[in-house]
């Protein structure tokens, strides 16, 4: 009777890396004498899986089994500099740095192996943990043997360096002309809601989100990012308000009893779709979508509320009180 359903859509965009540029990421890779690999990065894993992604990239470029790749934590005594884990930048900036570092390390690996095999480095390629002569695949040597030979016999360090980041960008102070935002990624959410017109409560029934991250280096982690973003976006839409008597600080919350985050009870059926529109600058075409996956739900939910009951709630969050007042005002 008093429960009305509605559907809403929102479509968004977001840049990869720091607005205005100037955000380097550096990486170093070194190979141990048994062929295992340490990837040194300076950006932290905030829970999004940065270490997993860097491990996949390093294993791909070095042709070593992924089980042999260690991605270090961050220690300023040993890690190379990185601007940090924010601005949806790590997969793209640190990822590109890891590719460069792996390529440089691979070159050293090839130089050592070329000596062992009596060929030129450019004749070599990597295959299933082996250094292989491209035109004579029967001539092959395990990476571990090359790594061992490099350390004990050749006295070479198989290592590589990488560095990537947007150059600092100036925009025109009056018109903003310039390219402060790079490598835009896109997303869209469809929200289905049910609004109780007697209590003002909104129940989100379903959130379907499609996000373009360019090449998904690990689709499982991308889907996790989209689902996590959906929960955050729902909180922004319906629950979270640090200053309930804005702009005053009256009755400010001091804990989770007075500041409401979405719980499992609030989060509806989630559906995450990965769209891959490869970029020209990303590792394998990747873009960064770390942050933006929480940006599309609030407008989609507000548009769905309008679809359900015909009122615009343009002041977040859409609390039952605001909905009842809007209905009353007609």
């Amino acid at each position, binding site marked *: 009777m008093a429960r009305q359903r509605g559907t809403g859509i929102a479509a968004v965009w977001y840049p990869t890396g720091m607005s205005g540029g100037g955000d380097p990421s550096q990486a170093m890779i070194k190979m141990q004498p048994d062929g295992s690999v340490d990837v040194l990065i300076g950006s932290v894993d905030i829970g999004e899986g940065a270490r997993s992604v860097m491990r996949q990239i390093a294993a791909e470029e070095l042709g070593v089994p992924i089980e042999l790749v260690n991605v270090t934590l961050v220690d300023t005594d040993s890690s190379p500099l990185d601007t940090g884990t924010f601005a949806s930048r790590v997969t793209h900036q640190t990822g590109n740095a890891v590719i460069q570092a792996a390529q440089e390390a691979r070159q050293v690996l090839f130089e050592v192996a070329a000596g062992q095999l009596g060929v030129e480095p450019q004749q070599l390629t990597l295959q299933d943990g082996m250094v292989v002569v491209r035109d004579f695949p029967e001539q092959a040597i395990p990476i571990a043997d090359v790594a061992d030979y490099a350390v004990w016999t050749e006295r070479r360090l198989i290592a590589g360096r990488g560095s990537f980041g947007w150059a600092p960008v100036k925009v025109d102070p009056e018109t903003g002309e310039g390219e402060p935002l790079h490598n835009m990624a896109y997303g869209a959410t469809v929200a289905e809601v049910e609004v109780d017109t007697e209590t003002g409560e909104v129940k989100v029934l379903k959130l379907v989100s499609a996000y373009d991250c360019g090449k998904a280096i690990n689709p499982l982690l991308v889907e996790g990012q989209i689902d996590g973003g959906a929960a955050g976006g729902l909180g922004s839409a319906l629950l979270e308000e640090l200053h309930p008597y*804005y702009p005053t600080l009256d009755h400010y919350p001091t804990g989770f009893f007075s500041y409401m985050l979405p719980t499992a009870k609030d989060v509806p059926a989630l559906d995450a779709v990965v*769209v891959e529109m490869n970029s020209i600058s990303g590792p394998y075409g990747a873009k960064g979508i770390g942050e933006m996956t929480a940006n599309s739900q609030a407008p989609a939910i507000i548009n769905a509320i309008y679809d359900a009951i015909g009122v615009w709630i343009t002041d977040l969050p859409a609390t039952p009180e605001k909905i009842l007042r809007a209905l009353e005002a007609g």
Partner: protein
Amino acid sequence: MADYKYVGKRLPRYDGMQHALAKTRYVNDLRYPDMLHMKVWRSPLISAKILNIDTSKAEVLPGVVAVVTHKQVPHNRYGAGDYPVLADEEIRYLGQEVVAVAAVDVDTAMEAVSLIQVDLEERTPLLDPFKAMEPDSIQLSPIGNFIKFDGNPYRQILKGDFESAIQEADFVVEGYYRTAAQEHCPIETQVSICQTDGMGRTHINTVTQAVFFNQGTIAAILKKPRSKVHMIGGVLGGGFGAKNDPHADHIAAVVSLYTGGRPVKWLWTREEEFVASTHRGAMHMFFKDGVMKDGRIIARSVRSIRDGGAYILTNDYVVAKHAFGVAGPYNIPNVKVISYGLLTNKRPTSSMRGFGLFQASFAFEVQMDRIAKTIGVDPWRLRFINAVHDGDTSATRAVLHNCALIEVMQAAAGRAGIRLDEELLHMASHSREEV
């Protein structure tokens, strides 16, 4: 298409299992011999002048090892050069840190804090960013209340000729939007363990999201070269932007200069996190769009005002990023954006997931639906008609490539079971020819 062995594969998280099994050791799990615990005296007032700080009773409490005020901070400014590590002359927000205490345990540190006497002269707080814009407003900083962008009190974006285009539009659609102030709520609150060794190196177990950024900040506060600030990080229980600015590290690092080499740990309570950590500032956005009968948006103006809180931190960055993207993923030839960041007596706002474009996305997407209802065009169609394509230029006149707005809408509609018109299903971002 390249054939990858690992890239593009649905591999489980490298470190996932140890998180799931609660085997991960976070900073709060670390224990050092002789480790001290820290608490701070926070301002109970929103705005005040500091008249006197008396720490004499706290200093003589048994178990107290160090009591630190602004006088002991080697360089007491950071951020944009305006933010004191420990308040010296004034209080600009509720909960601002004034005195830090290191003691043998948490209870002793709390007792010492309760013995500190700070004399404050209360001032009228400035909490409303609109009032902060008025010429006769209380001025919160020597450079006024407006955060500066290349010397201007605004970040402006101009493309085409908005004023002429709005005259030619069939419809003018206006809207006001506000996003709320939000707390990041990472599961792990701010925490830091600092120790300064006999060689003058300060070792910091940090939960920061930006280790090297903060290494530079803390080195400047301690007046040491970067190589004497050793930060160990990489394991944190969530951030969402709450851990880009220093919260605990910089003050604990200063205190560690005065503990005779003993490590000092500072763990924030949830209440401290809610009251005194950085947060997402509320934002007010006013839209005025010129739209043609067929749905083309030919002109958009946006005026936005961010309630920035007490110090600049990353506010200038957030407001600028907002301004650059707030016109939305649409091909609008005439754009005028003016965005402001205002200082108020709220705790400093700074980065939070979405950096100014969370707010923008909410506004420009609800505005799209309002346009659709006003002119009687389907909301999906309106977005497809205006969507950016490869080769279009953004509001800052940067050429766009690898656009995918159309494709994500097609994918979302498909999965949600929404039937789009054939015409929309045949559109593509790489070219307008296929429409």
